[in-house]
């Protein structure tokens, strides 16, 4: 079913290629309760009205499961917790994760392109490379945790900079 899966994933144009999530830095929450350690949070740059996603590794260092029921941010009209599943026809489909994300006791959940992620739809503003995005995670008990994620560009390196190339300002 890989072929169809790839085709389906292509529809999700906000997603980017590859990502190493090995991790030297941790972002401690700026506000709210600390349910999880959020490692390597980032958001792909996108223009106003478009959609994009947030990615990170969520580590639960406690002895009980942690349930994220929703996420929100000022940057977008809609924020959803998404999963990618194999549909009845064998194709992979992105869809809201109905019961939210569960991070097992002493476990971790990787949010990454093509898998679990936080999806922002109808952005209120451009998300420019180097901006920081605040995301609020809401847990089962209605407590919240705030995460600050870096907005990463995704452009090719300019290997032949001496030759003329059009540049866009962002």
């Amino acid at each position, binding site marked *: 079913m890989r*072929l169809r899966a*790839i*085709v389906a*994933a*292509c529809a*999700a*144009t906000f*997603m*980017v*290629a*590859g*990502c*190493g*999530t*090995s*991790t*030297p*830095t*941790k*972002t*401690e929450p700026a506000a709210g309760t600390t349910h999880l350690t959020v490692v*390597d949070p*980032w958001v*792909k*740059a996108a223009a106003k009205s478009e959609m994009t996603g947030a*990615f990170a*590794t969520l580590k639960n260092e406690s002895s009980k499961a942690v349930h994220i029921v929703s996420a929100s941010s000022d940057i977008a009209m809609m924020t959803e917790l998404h999963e990618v599943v194999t549909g009845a026809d064998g194709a992979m489909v992105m869809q809201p994760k109905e019961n939210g994300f569960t991070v097992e006791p002493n476990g971790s959940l*990787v949010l*990454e*392109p*093509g*898998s679990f992620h936080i999806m922002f739809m109808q952005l209120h503003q451009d998300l*420019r*490379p*180097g*901006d*920081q995005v605040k995301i609020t995670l809401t847990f089962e008990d209605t407590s919240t945790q705030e995460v600050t994620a*870096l907005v*990463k*560009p*995704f*452009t*090719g*390196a*300019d290997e032949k*900079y001496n030759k003329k190339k059009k*540049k*866009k*300002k*962002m």
Partner: protein
Amino acid sequence: MTPSIGRRHLVTGAAALGGLAVGAGAHELATRSGAAESNQAIDFHGPRQAGVQTPPQLYASLVGLDLHAVTRDALTRLMRLLSDDAARLTQGAPALADTEPEMALAPGRLTVTFGFGPRVARLLGLDLPEMPAFKTDALQDRWRGTDLLLQIGCDDPTTLSHAQRVLLKDADPLARLVWVQRGFRDAAGASGLSMRNLMGQVDGTVNPRTPEEFDALVWSGNTTQVVVRRIEIRFDTWDRVDRRGREFTIGRTLSTGAPLTGKDEFDTPDFAATDAAGFPVIDPASHMRRARGDAKGAQFLRRGFNYDDPGDGAGLLFVAFAQDLRRQFVPSQQRIAELDLLNRWVSTIGSAHYLVPSGARPNDWVGHDELD
């Protein structure tokens, strides 16, 4: 061609155009075995940037960038991105969204040092002296000063290449690449002497070496200044100068790097010594005599690299760090421009200078102190 191949081609093409969706987690990364002992990580975070007091690596890429817009907003975003990349890559970890995460795993003493050029210094109200014109300079616009310097040093050329690509990709939306100048030094441990440049000279003898000397000569609080000069060597004529002529020009013995009045590289030169005929042993016009500042506090850190670019000349990437370039570097360079036997065989074809801002605290970025 079978139908299945055709369909798959479409898929791969779509991936190329659309940005396909499946990433690799850290668990997929192969563990590198048998890493060389020298494959160390240098701390990125700290009050002062790495890459200054750090013993020089085998290779360096000096990257000059101009901001598309010289604004606090653009600079902040750029420094956030590049600091995040540098913090990870220097520790042997992939950058966020790294497309070749496996190529980040051998840090090889990677350091990334950032410098702010004159336009950025003015924007931030930081003190960076003007660089006077030196009459012997033959500057080419392609090696001019820029808004930003990235000094990327590494012992592993593949890691260096990857780090440079990651940094340039992240810089691309905010800054334009003006030049890359690549250099190299002796293999670590190959020589007990200071670096030998391509003219055969031992280079960097009077450098500060102790932390106290660095504090006195290089650091101004947690910042420093750096000048990058591209010095081309005219080998076609230099090759015709014999050893005695070379040593006379430099003022040092080539084999040991010792002053002509001494035995060891670090011996203090005796400029008053004369030979039987009454001539100074070290010529007053020799490079050593002219370059050397006698005043206390006039020395600075030379941390240069050789360059040898196929089809585009060879020479020295002179990289000098000083508390105050005006007080330390400029007088030395002015003496050289006035008179130096070596001028016959070298020309400075590029010059750029920068303020090196303080280092980043953990979870922070380089330049935050200066931008606040």
